[in-house]
């Protein structure tokens, strides 16, 4: 009896305090690769990551991969207000803590943070035609998308460090809005899973969702980086009859063949002719679908001119490196051509990424061949060098190595 009373008293006195200690997430000190000056090597620094607020999730990053868009912004001298910033947006991690009103994921879940939101409740999320969430549209915000909209990162001096497109994965812990989080329902090797949070979804989705490539059709892909190779993979999965890869690096043909590329054009080896002349000749008038996967207005124009009159579609997946406008011939567009663009290949992250995960598990989607290098977090700058020199497709950066 006394034992029972003693037990009840200690339980009553201890448990609320214990619950409070367990429940309230604390700020976390951890390592981050901070970019302070455009184009300069990232410094591994200590940062403090604040706890997740309402609708937010704090994630312990397992691994992250470098994407060309990180490099585009890393180099952006024209926007000094961007820095200091934690880049990185293609990653996988484990939920460490959640803020209020988060029911979709729980501590311990493996998740992908994604730069594109899917709130699930707005007109954009409800429409089959769009993947543009109207509640949390894609913009270059430097803090959280909702609530105080501030940064959750502070550096050693106590100053804020900006987020990058609602993800910021070059850090051991990050805070992401739940609308930007996709749960993994089945186990997938983390380095492969991370690829789906940006580059590979952009390419595969481009062929699947944006273009809806028809079986037997002819596809031309301009730029054979991760996005271009993923567009080839997507076109192959859609049953394309012919997939022409265009790049300046002849080495891309060999790796391209693994993703379904049937023909290769090296833009540096076509003499006086234009790319579109070459492709029109190869295809008897132009490709049914042309994908621009680099981010150069001149290449977007080449892609457009290489598309077939009558029904040719040009799909822009690359983010223009200098913000230059696309310029197309006004007579040629009247011949039934169209140009469209998409982020994340037109995919809704929470609805469609799990579909690609399933396809990977069933061996219908090749993810393995995209990863060509791996480094530990301390060597993150090596990943930048490899991508800039065109030596890697995807380099996985492991946080705990």
């Amino acid at each position: 009896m006394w034992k029972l009373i003693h037990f009840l008293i200690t339980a009553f006195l201890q448990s609320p305090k214990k619950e409070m200690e367990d429940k309230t997430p604390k700020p976390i000190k951890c390592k981050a690769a901070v970019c302070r000056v455009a184009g300069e090597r990232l410094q591994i620094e200590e940062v403090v990551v604040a706890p997740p607020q309402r609708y937010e999730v704090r994630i312990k990053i397992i691994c992250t991969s470098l994407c060309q868009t990180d490099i585009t912004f890393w180099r952006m001298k024209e926007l000094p207000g961007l820095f200091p910033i934690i880049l990185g947006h293609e990653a996988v991690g484990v939920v460490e803590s959640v803020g209020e009103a988060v029911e979709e994921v729980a501590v311990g879940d493996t998740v992908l943070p994604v730069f594109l939101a899917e709130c699930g409740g707005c007109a954009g999320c409800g429409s089959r035609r769009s993947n543009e969430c109207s509640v949390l549209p894609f913009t270059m915000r430097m803090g959280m998308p909702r609530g105080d909209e501030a940064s959750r990162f502070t550096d050693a001096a106590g100053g804020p460090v900006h987020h990058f497109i609602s993800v910021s994965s070059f850090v051991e812990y990050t805070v992401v809005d739940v609308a930007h989080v996709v749960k993994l329902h089945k186990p997938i090797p983390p380095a492969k899973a991370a690829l789906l949070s940006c580059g590979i979804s952009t390419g595969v989705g481009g062929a699947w969702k944006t273009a809806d490539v028809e079986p037997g059709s002819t596809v031309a892909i301009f730029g054979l980086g991760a996005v271009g190779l993923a567009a080839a993979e997507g076109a192959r999965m859609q049953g394309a009859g012919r997939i022409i890869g265009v790049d300046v690096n002849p080495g891309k043909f060999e790796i391209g063949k693994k993703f379904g590329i049937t023909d290769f054009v090296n833009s540096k080896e076509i003499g006086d002719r234009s790319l579109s002349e070459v492709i029109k000749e190869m295809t008897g008038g132009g490709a049914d679908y042309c994908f621009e996967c680099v981010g150069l207005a001149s290449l977007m124009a080449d892609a457009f001119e290489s598309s077939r009159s009558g029904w040719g579609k040009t799909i822009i997946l690359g983010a223009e490196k200098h913000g230059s406008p696309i310029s197309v011939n006004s007579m040629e567009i009247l011949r039934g051509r169209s140009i469209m663009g998409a982020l994340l290949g037109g995919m809704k992250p929470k609805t469609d990424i799990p579909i690609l995960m399933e396809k990977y598990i069933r061996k219908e989607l090749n993810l393995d061949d995209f990863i060509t290098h791996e480094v530990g977090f301390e060597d993150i700058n090596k990943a930048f060098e490899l991508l800039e020199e065109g030596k890697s497709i995807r380099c996985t950066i492991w946080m705990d190595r």
Partner: protein
Amino acid sequence: MAMPFPEPIRCKAAVCRAAGEPLLIEEVVVAPPRAHEVRVRIICSSLCYSDVAAWRLRVFPTVFPRIFGHEAIGVVESVGEEVEEVEVGDTVMPVFLADCRDCVDCRSERSNMCSRLPFRAQTSGMPRDGTTRFTDAAGDPVHHFLAVSSFSQYTVVDVANVVKVSSEMPPEKICVLSCGFSTGFGAAWKVANVDPGATVAVFGLGTIGLAVVEGARVQGAGRIIGVDLKPDKFEVGKRLGLTDFINPNDIGDRSINEVIKEMTNGGADYCFECIGLASLMLEAYRSSRLGWGKTIILGVEKNMSPITFDSKEILCGRTIIGSAFGGLKSKTHIPILIDKYLNKELHLDEFVTHEVGLDEINKAFELLIEGKCIRCVIWMDK
């Protein structure tokens, strides 16, 4: 029974001998139709802005002397060898866009760009052999325009450019189907496939723009915003379904796209450019909604300038589509449009605002250039 071999025909035509100069009514000789060709006695023809633009052009690809006109209706006077689709006496519309019904494009639902006789704006002769069927009084060649040349009492057209139509309708009412109306209506119907309840913005309320308005109305659009510098276009537009009007001269410092985005809470679902100005095409693009906004380009750029679009915002789900003749196949779709007109499902009568005889053809040019008409019909035998 042996058919009499067709002879050359002497008739009147409106000949252009210099860019921008009034057309001259002259006697021309129209050769008999060769294989795959049809000689048509034109009943009436209407003036389209593309005729005006080409008439003004001083540099290549223009050639003189030339017979303009490409929107018309007539009767088959004689046929060349291999022509089985139409017979002498049939009422037909010549159409600048060929429909051979046999090539990959003609057989595909996705395309109306015939690849056997591809459309070339600079074509100055017959599509298959490039030669002309017209000679003037001095015996010199007079060039064709867009493979139609309907400002003539008789013309020769390839059978792929001819659509047989019913003779029971007033020709001056349906004449506009052979170019302008079909371009606009088809764009809303086939190219955009405007969905019910959608918001549509139409830039330029000439014949094409007004036909887009009509097409959007028939598709069940919820809101149709017209953009034009002439306030009286709103009245005409309202009869066809326009719900809102923007006059760019009345919006102060703001841009058209700012006004439209505000009116539509983010941008229109479909934006149609119906004039042919690169700057307006960009404005239309910027007025389309992120996520799924479509911009449809119908206008032929007046200076052949390239069209320029932002490369960042296109990633946010926008599409730009161009089309000729509203994405329609002339032989398949013109008869369908005529049926819709007969069933009172679409309005055509509002499009014809003036009529003149061939001798007064230059008046039609004045009226169109001054923006005083929608379609002015030119009767060939008056």
